């Protein structure tokens, strides 16, 4: 009995200790001046998007130098955090704008609802996929209005985001579905960006074209039949 108890304590101890040790090693050592440069870049692009879209609510952009490949919008502080791990994956400013626009959409949502949006996080808890699709689509609008190329959102996703087997147990839809939803949105609202597409020969976009053949065929059928409703993408 005592041995079992000790084993449980050991396992729990390891579980507690692991995140502490890993988070310490996650932080990359970079100079303050480099950090300042990146922070300025992120803030400049972020505020350009906010102003160009005439967004009525406040949010700020914070650069975190850890290796995590992620960005998030803090529901309560209304700040958008972008990790270095994500920043170094972005090849150009349009891709950075794609990440920030997605998070800005989440941040703007946090203002909606009673008591200054205090309970809005419950929506995100119970219908997270709906809000991910929303943020992806609003990001396209924000990008276009701020003068960025919305196809960069597809390029960014295809380069950075993994592909789960299923999405029923995840807060985010499958990346392939998200990319198709963005592609469909651009096709319907801003077709000129697919025709006059500066990412046409980009290897990540080319890979999207290669891997989304079946999904694009489904979308083509929808367009040809002039049907309404959502397509069940793979």
């Amino acid at each position: 009995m005592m041995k079992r108890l000790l084993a449980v304590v050991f396992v729990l101890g390891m579980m507690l200790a692991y995140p502490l040790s890993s988070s310490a090693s996650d932080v990359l050592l970079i100079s303050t001046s480099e950090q300042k440069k990146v922070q300025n870049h992120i803030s400049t692009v972020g505020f350009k998007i906010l102003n160009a879209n005439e967004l009525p609510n406040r949010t700020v952009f914070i650069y975190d130098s850890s290796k995590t490949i992620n960005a998030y919008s803090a529901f309560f502080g209304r700040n958008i955090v972008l990790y270095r791990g994500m920043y170094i994956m972005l090849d150009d400013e349009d891709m950075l704008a794609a990440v920030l626009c997605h998070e800005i959409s989440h941040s703007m949502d946090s203002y909606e609802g009673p008591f200054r949006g205090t309970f809005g996080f419950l929506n995100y808890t119970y219908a997270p996929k709906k809000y991910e699709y929303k943020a992806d689509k609003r990001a396209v609008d924000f990008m276009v209005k701020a003068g960025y190329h919305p196809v960069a959102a597809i390029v960014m996703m295809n380069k950075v985001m993994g592909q789960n087997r299923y999405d029923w147990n995840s807060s985010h839809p499958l990346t392939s579905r998200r990319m198709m939803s963005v592609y469909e949105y651009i096709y319907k609202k801003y077709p000129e960006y697919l025709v006059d597409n500066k990412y046409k020969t980009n290897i990540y976009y080319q890979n999207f074209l290669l891997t989304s053949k079946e999904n694009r065929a489904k979308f083509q059928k929808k367009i040809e039949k002039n049907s309404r409703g959502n397509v069940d993408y793979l």
Partner: protein
Amino acid sequence: MLMLPSYAIIEDDFVNATLDKNLKIKKQKETTPNSGIPIQIRIKEDFTTKSKPEEGDFIEFETVEDFKSFSAGTTVKGRIEFISMNCIWGVPADIVIGNFQIGNIALYGEIHKGGANRIIWLRPATIVGTFFFGAGLALIPIRGGHAKIKTDKIYTVYYR
């Protein structure tokens, strides 16, 4: 940017076959927030997301007062820019209407509307109800409210 050699390029046949090749990207106008002449509009008929509209559908509004050569009551068309339907757990529908046009003149501004957010009472009710033989679970399928725009509500868009 990493590029492939031309011989290896995969063409987007779907886009090539269905879209006009002469489409060009328009430069976005630089604007000052909420600048321009404000125009008050209201929807012509009560609208709700219950009717399952889709992105790209147009909704008709009308001007409340005279504007330039347009008299009060002139039709202003707005496009559904984004829509997401209500779901279970009381999550509401959302809609964004923008791309307003009066005649051939583009107007600026967007209307955001959300339905009733029932999750605020549904969540505690579900938790409490679950202690009564799991009765709370029966509340989960309750959907959030539809987004509604009523004729008596006046919105402001801008002419630049």
